């Protein structure tokens, strides 16, 4: 059975896109926080936990939120919706923030709320909590966007009937450099037109490369 990408979000270079359409742009930000906070407020989610997340989780959370605005997740068995993400910087941005709190022995006050984010798969946890996803998950590290690595991993999950659908993609952030490409992948159906918010792009490494390049 073949799979299709039925929704995707892209965040990079001051713009946020959903299914290829620009949702938000801001050319005047200096920090990632200045970029993402107004957009989060614009979404009006009423989810104060967002403010406590580290920047990587905020990036993944927003990218996932946009994908799930195009997918009616209530129609899926959430125990069988997987999530497989990858990046190059792991949680280094937050690792460095934690390091700064313990550099000075006379001002040694490690922050518990920073420390808990010193693993990249915590971002997956935040997305799973928000959308109640309980399927297979995994976080991969590669030096650069590796579509084949992600495709093979996700394809294996489908081939072994471990998931009914899967959120996958790239969420990378280090200081003020950030980019995200998230894709919702599910078995190709014969009647995609019945769900007008969705797209239908055959799932392949080449398709992922194409979407990544036009992010």
């Amino acid at each position, binding site marked *: 059975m073949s799979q299709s990408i039925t929704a995707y979000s892209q965040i990079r270079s001051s713009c946020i896109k959903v299914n290829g359409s620009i949702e938000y742009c801001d050319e005047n930000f200096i920090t990632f926080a200045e970029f993402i906070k107004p957009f989060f407020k614009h979404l009006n989610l009423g989810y104060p936990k967002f403010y406590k997340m580290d920047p990587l989780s905020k990036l993944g959370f927003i990218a996932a939120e946009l994908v799930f605005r195009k997918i009616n997740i209530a129609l899926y068995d959430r125990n069988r919706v997987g999530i497989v993400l990858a990046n190059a910087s792991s949680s280094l941005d937050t690792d460095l923030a934690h390091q700064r709190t313990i550099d000075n022995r006379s001002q040694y006050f490690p922050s*518990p709320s920073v420390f808990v984010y010193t693993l990249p798969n915590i971002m997956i946890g935040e997305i799973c909590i928000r959308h109640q996803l309980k399927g297979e998950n995994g976080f991969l590290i590669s030096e650069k966007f590796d579509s084949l690595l992600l495709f093979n991993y996700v394809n294996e999950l489908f081939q072994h009937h471990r998931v009914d659908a899967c959120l996958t993609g790239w969420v990378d952030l280090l200081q003020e450099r950030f980019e995200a490409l998230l894709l919702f992948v599910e078995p190709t159906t014969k009647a995609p037109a019945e769900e007008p918010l969705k797209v239908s792009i055959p799932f392949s490494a080449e398709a992922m490369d194409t979407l990544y390049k036009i992010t």
Partner: protein
Amino acid sequence: MEDLIEKLKKEVIEQLNLEDISAEDIDADSPLFGEGLGLDSIDALELIVLLEKNYGLKIEDPKDGKKIFHSIRTMADYITEYQRA
């Protein structure tokens, strides 16, 4: 005491990243956990760090935490008591 309570409210908001809450929104006597501000276990650890970093107070017995962190006022009472000693 009222000055300390106002100062504590601002410090708690900053330490816990309570972005959508202002000092005026916090009732000094309302529970910080569960209802009230709805803080969680990581927030409890952050409050322990706040007391140590800003007031030099170390909570030696974890059982004391429940009483000390019941509300902003109980935190202020604890700081005042320590500063008098």
